[in-house]
Every structure is written in structure tokens, then in C-alpha cells.
């Protein structure tokens, strides 16, 4: 049995995302995908799905949705006060949905982005191998755009009830992002680190930066001290990755996020480590952060440990895909 979801209110930039559109960066196609990969994967696993099924990425103000059919869902990431039929509903666990139920979101408690997974996934056709929405290109996800009032989202065939065998294991919880705090974000140094002045290097390591309101899925612009280059040699365009921190001519760093260009020509001072990209994605405009340098070995060890925890969760839930 397949199902449908009616969109009563669209929320702000609610759009379908999966783990991204890979294999086409050499054509200049941005990867896109969930901003918070960790929350996206958790939501899918808790709904009994493979981790690359599309989830609904919900930002700041959530949508109001009516489920026409019975299903199961899970919500992970930011706590945007989800309510089911008017009652508060728990994050980070499977939720059974009766036909006709209404899901809404309210006040932001912490974080910025929540991920809604439905059992079996959303039934939209992949474009170039991915269900991720690319709004600038107008393709992928649901009609290549964010949700609008009156949309009807198709759910995939209901794959049978999902009965997880175990609760969320320790170490799989979301990182907490306190709105008033200065969030430490770990980075490895970039290939152009030495092309900044010693003062700029010191400033980068010590400064508190604020997320600019001019930040989006493509990149987070930072407000704080401008970083001076040690030379004026122009850079030849080359590849970028998720978390690359580039410094354009004005000296203000930009952290490249899910919808970054595949290549670009600004100096790369550092890279946010993969396990902390989840933190970055949950920081809202005006929130503060500071960078902490770690070695590549440490970054990859943390990454491998997190993959192990997720594999344990997958095994404990009996999700095989």
C-alpha cells in the first residue's frame, strides 16, 4: 500500500534530500544532499529505511502535514517541537501514524534543521541517481523545489510495520547546539594555510565568528576578523568539498555546505571535520562558533568511530540495507 501526505502549510524551505548526487561533480553538478547527514541517517534508520532514502529537511519553522494513510515515521536533528494531533511527540524514535493524523512543528528548542523520514521513503523519481532537491537547478526531490501549500507528497509502498529490537544506543544522540553558547567546531588545516599571514593564522584559531544571515545550503558566511593573505598570487580553480573553509578577497571565511559548487578559485584555509559538519548544519544565523585545529588522523579516527556506532545502531535495529 502506498500513501500520500497533504501539505497544509509548507514551512520554510522544506525540501527532500538524500545523501547527495555523486558522480557528476566533474560536470559541475553540485552534490546537494542533507545538510546534517548524521540526523538524516538516524531518521532513516529509526524508520527502518536504508540511510540514503530521501527525508524531508525541515528548517526553523516546520510544515503542517496530514498523513492520508497509516505509516511509521521518525524525526531526528533539531528539536522544533513536533506535535502529532496536537500532542507533543518524541524525537529520535519510531512513531506510529494513524491515517488522517496531522503533524505540526512549533517553537525552536535547539538546532536548526530536523529530518523527517517515512517508512519506505518518499516516492519521487531519482534524477541523476539522487532524490536530492537542487532548487537552483530546478530538479530532483519533489518537482525540483521546496514544498508549497497544497502539495501532495507521495510515499513509497508501505514496507510492513517496523518493530525495532532495541532503543537508540549511547553515542548515537545528536550533538547539542545551545543557542547562546560559542560552539567549538573542529577543523583540519587546508592546503593554503601557509599562504595566510602568521597574524591571520593566529586570528583564525582564536576568534569567535558569527554565522551571517546571508547563509544558506550553499555556504555559511562568517562575521568576524578579516584574514590577511601573505601573498597575492591568484589561485587556479580546483575542487571543493563539504566543510571546506574558503577565504575570498574580503578576508571573511565562508564554510561550504551541502549545495556548494564542485570547484572554485578561493584560498582554502581549513576544512571542518566530517563529524562536526552536523554541528555546523544546526547553527542558526547570529549563533557563534570558534575553530579548533585537529590532525587529519584524529579527524579520520573520529569519523571511523562514528561510522562504527551507526553500524551498531543499524544492526541493533535489524536494518540490513
Amino acid at each position, binding site marked *: 500500500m502506498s500513501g500520500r501526505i497533504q501539505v497544509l502549510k509548507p514551512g520554510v524551505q522544506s525540501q527532500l534530500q538524500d545523501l547527495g548526487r*555523486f*558522480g*557528476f*561533480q*566533474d*560536470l*559541475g*553538478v*553540485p552534490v546537494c544532499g542533507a545538510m546534517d547527514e548524521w540526523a538524516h541517517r538516524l531518521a532513516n534508520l529509526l524508520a527502518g529505511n536504508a540511510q540514503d532514502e530521501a527525508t524531508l529537511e525541515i528548517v526553523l519553522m516546520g510544515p503542517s502535514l496530514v498523513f492520508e494513510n497509516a505509516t511509521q515515521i521518525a524525526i531526528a536533528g533539531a528539536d522544533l517541537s513536533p506535535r502529532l494531533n496536537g500532542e507533543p511527540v518524541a524525537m529520535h524514535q519510531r512513531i506510529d501514524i494513524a491515517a488522517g493524523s496531522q503533524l505540526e512543528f512549533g517553537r525552536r528548542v535547539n538546532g536548526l534543521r530536523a529530518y523527517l523520514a517515512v517508512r519506505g521513503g518518499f516516492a519521487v523519481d531519482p*534524477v*541523476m541517481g539522487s532524490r536530492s532537491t537542487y532548487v*537552483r*537547478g530546478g*530538479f*530532483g526531490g519533489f518537482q525540483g523545489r521546496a514544498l508549497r501549500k497544497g502539495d501532495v507528497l507521495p510515499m513509497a509502498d508501505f514496507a510492513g510495520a517496523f518493530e525495532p529490537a532495541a532503543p537508540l544506543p549511547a553515542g548515537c544522540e545528536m550533538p547539542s547546539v545551545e543557542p547562546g553558547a560559542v560552539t567549538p567546531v573542529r577543523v*583540519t588545516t*587546508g*592546503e593554503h594555510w601557509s599562504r595566510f599571514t602568521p597574524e591571520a593564522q593566529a586570528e583564525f584559531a582564536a576568534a569567535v565568528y558569527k554565522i551571517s544571515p546571508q547563509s544558506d545550503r550553499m555556504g555559511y558566511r562568517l562575521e568576524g576578523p578579516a584574514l590577511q593573505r601573505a601573498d597575492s598570487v591568484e589561485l*587556479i*580553480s*580546483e*575542487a571543493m*568539498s*563539504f*566543510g*571546506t573553509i574558503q577565504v575570498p578577497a574580503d578576508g571573511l571565511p565562508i564554510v561550504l555546505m551541502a549545495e556548494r*559548487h*564542485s*570547484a*572554485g578559485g578561493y584560498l*582554502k584555509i581549513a*576544512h*571542518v*571535520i*566530517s563529524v562536526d559538519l552536523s554541528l555546523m548544519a544546526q547553527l542558526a544565523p547570529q549563533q557563534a562558533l570558534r575553530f579548533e585545529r585537529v590532525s*587529519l*588522523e584524529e*579527524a*579520520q579516527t573520529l*569519523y*571511523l568511530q562514528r*561510522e562504527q556506532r551507526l553500524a551498531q545502531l543499524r544492526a541493533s535495529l535489524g536494518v540490513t540495507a
Partner: protein
Amino acid sequence: MGDRCLLIGVGDTVDPETSARVFGLVRRLKERPIAGVFDIVPAFTTVALHYRPELLGAAPFEALRAAVLERLAEPLDTAASAGRSIDIPVCYGGELGPDLADVAAQCGLTTEQVIERHMQSAHRIYMLGFAPGFPFIGGLDPALKMPRRSSPRTRIPPGSVGIARDQSCVYPLETPGGWNLIGRTPVRLFDPAADPPCLLAPGDRVRFVRIDEPTYQNLLEAQP
């Protein structure tokens, strides 16, 4: 480049020889793939390997570096890939090429001379990037060399043909941009539903062919 991407430097200058080495390396890495590498992104002087560390063992970076060095042990085939020869029809000047007169003035040429030199340049695609299907096209006649516009436009119509420094480009989608726009093509460069989705590929040789505005309109309307 962070904990999930390795950048390989192949040269320091933008030229056909470096480009041939870049694509020689890409061919080698496709013939003898490395487990865990899921995206290979060539640029003017570099090749980036996006990889999944969990598929490369306990010391992922070291394992990947060793695998790359092993593939570099034998000399690369740097014969420039034959590439295809593709004609791109362009309606030069007027509303479709709003910077043509300005370019001519800056280069000390007439608009006719700019068009002639642009059509006769030895265009070759070095890389795609910036936006889906956006080609960086080298080989521009040195007489047309000029900087990008000091203030980028916020919206450039699809099909716009631009020049800046020693390169040409064509905008496949409406995006912001700072190149000097000298004309527009009715040809669609990117279609996500097509296979392959991009009309052009690195290594292709491009010839710009002049068309008049009625032909431009006819070709534009003839597209599905």
C-alpha cells in the same frame, strides 16, 4: 583536503600539456579504480578524489595515498584525448551580447573584429564547474584578453557566451556571474533528463559559429 577528499596536484599552469596530464591521470584512475573513491573531479591543474574513509581500512588517508602512488608508478598516457569537435551557434552583440561594444573598446578593436577573433580562436574545454555543465574554455585569442567585470551581474540568462582573461564560457543556467557577455547561444548545454546530461565534456574542441537573431529565435523555439 579535509578528511574525505584527496587533492592531487598535477601542474602549476593552465595549458594544454597540464590538461592532458590531468585527463591521463583521470583515465588511469578509471581503468584501475580505488575502492572507496566515489567521485573524481578534474580541474585545470588538479584531480580531486572524494572518498569514504570507512572503505579504506584503519588509516584511510595513508591507504589512499599509497593506492594513488602505485597508480602513478607507470608513466601516464598523456596523449591529448581526441575530444569531439562541436559547433556552438552564437548570436553576437545587441541585447543578447550586451558587453560586446565595451569589449571592443577595451581591446581597441571593432565589434566585427572581436567576433571574427572569437570565432577563430582555438577553443578547448579544460573543465566543467561552477554550475552544471558550465564549461571553462581555453584558447581565446590573446587580443581579446581582458578582466572580469568589476561588478558581477546578479542574473545572467541561460546560453549567454562570455569572455574573461584568456577564456570563454557559456552559462547553462540562470546564475550570477562576472564574465563579459558578447553573445548568446540557443543550444541547451545541460539537461538533467538527458544521458549524458551535458552537451560538452573536457577535452572537446569548440567552434563558435555566428548566427543572426531570427535564426537564434528559430533554434530556440525548435528545442523541446
